[in-house]
């Protein structure tokens, strides 16, 4: 994207690159080179602190603009999507209605996509389960931000309790967990939140050998990241942008063992 970072990179450019660095847009080599410069330059270190503080304040404090009631319905009507069901109630129901439509609309595609290669079928089920959870009155079976509550809840419900880490400090609070059914077997799914977005993280026993360590895909507008750790295939799905979902995956993978 830009010139390599090295000792002769002008300070101005380093200041600019701090943004890219904090946004996860620098490649590893340049990120390391920039970190070195920041360590040895108090001006850069102060700038990094300022920007990081601002990013955090924006991320944590600026509320999402809620969708005005009725807007979704008017759009569905204009496009010819809805069958004019009245839906007062909270926006949650409005969201559920549109998700329901997406599910109904895409179920044909779902069955077509049921061929069993490199986890495609699992991916379809992951998307379905995520959508179904969003449609349910609550997207989670156990609602808690305490991993010491969530983890034991899975005992006896799924063959294996999942790894649960606390990422609230990083802007991804745990909100709970639920059981999904993937390929006919119960699977623990953790639910995290980032801003107004829900992330479902399912831990599936990995039966497909020789799969790539980490893969990404987009299905029906949702981003999915899959990776394998210790024989468990993790699937993260969200309507978050891929940068944020990648950041979540990085944090989850880097978190210390429980």
């Amino acid at each position, binding site marked *: *994207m*830009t010139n390599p970072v090295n000792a002769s990179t002008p300070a*101005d*450019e380093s*200041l*600019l690159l701090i*943004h*890219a660095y904090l*946004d996860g*847009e620098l490649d590893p080599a340049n990120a390391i080179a920039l970190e070195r410069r920041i360590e040895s330059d*108090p*001006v*850069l*270190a*102060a*700038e990094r*602190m*300022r*920007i990081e*503080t*601002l*990013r*955090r*304040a*924006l*991320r944590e*404090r*600026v*509320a*999402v*603009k809620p*969708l*005005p009631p009725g*807007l*979704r319905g*008017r*759009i*569905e009507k*204009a*496009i*010819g*999507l809805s069958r004019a069901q009245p839906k007062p109630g909270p926006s949650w129901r409005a969201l559920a209605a*549109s998700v329901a*439509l*997406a599910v109904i*609309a*895409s179920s044909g595609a779902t069955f077509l996509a049921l061929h069993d290669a490199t986890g495609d079928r699992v991916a379809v089920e992951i998307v379905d389960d995520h959508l179904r959870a969003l449609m349910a009155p609550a997207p989670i079976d156990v609602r808690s931000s305490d991993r010491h509550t969530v983890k034991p809840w899975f005992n006896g419900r799924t063959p294996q309790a999942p790894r649960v880490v606390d990422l609230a400090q990083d802007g991804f609070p745990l909100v709970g967990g639920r059981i999904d059914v993937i390929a006919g077997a119960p699977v623990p799914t953790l639910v995290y939140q980032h*801003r*107004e977005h829900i992330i479902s993280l399912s831990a599936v026993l990995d039966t497909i050998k020789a799969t790539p360590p980490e893969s990404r895909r*987009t299905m*029906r*507008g*949702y981003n999915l990241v899959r990776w394998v750790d210790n024989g468990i295939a993790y699937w993260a799905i969200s*309507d*978050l*942008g*891929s*940068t*944020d979902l990648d950041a979540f995956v990085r944090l989850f993978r880097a978190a210390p063992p429980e």
Partner: protein
Amino acid sequence: MSGDDDRKRFAELVMPHLGDAYALAHWLTGNQADAEDVVQEACLRAFRGLAGCAGTNARAWTLTIVRHTAYSWLGKNRRSALVAVDDLEAVERAQALSPDAAVASRPTPETELIAKADAARLEAAIAMLPLQFRETLVLRDLQGLQYREIAEVTAVPVGTVMSRLARARARLIDLIRVDES
């Protein structure tokens, strides 16, 4: 492609991003009523233009249309919001990337100010940013798009995204500081 297929694709590709679409429209127009009009119009445009969506990044595609629609709306209703920016960018280009060391190395009080700024102050400061800085900041810091996605949505090179974002954030910090003192 039949109308039913179109509707199905619309439900799959565009509807999941309605929240982001509305939020962007709100930040660009500055109020709910206009944002609703923009989003409705954008959805109709998106529906008519579905053939142009590859489906690989439906969110960026949707937001691109929302932004276009918002700009048309601003052009009709708030010409002043659109024009001022180019002049401003030229001025800023001259000074932007030479922040004096005195400013940059004044860390703690300022960092504390930012850390303490409440939601209302942050939102007011964002609303005061010139349009093109504001949209870049909103797309990155509130909606989490990658630089290349922002480049796609705002139709500028990635380098411009980087410099706009840097300036947007610097200005935001200034606004929060001025507001406080």
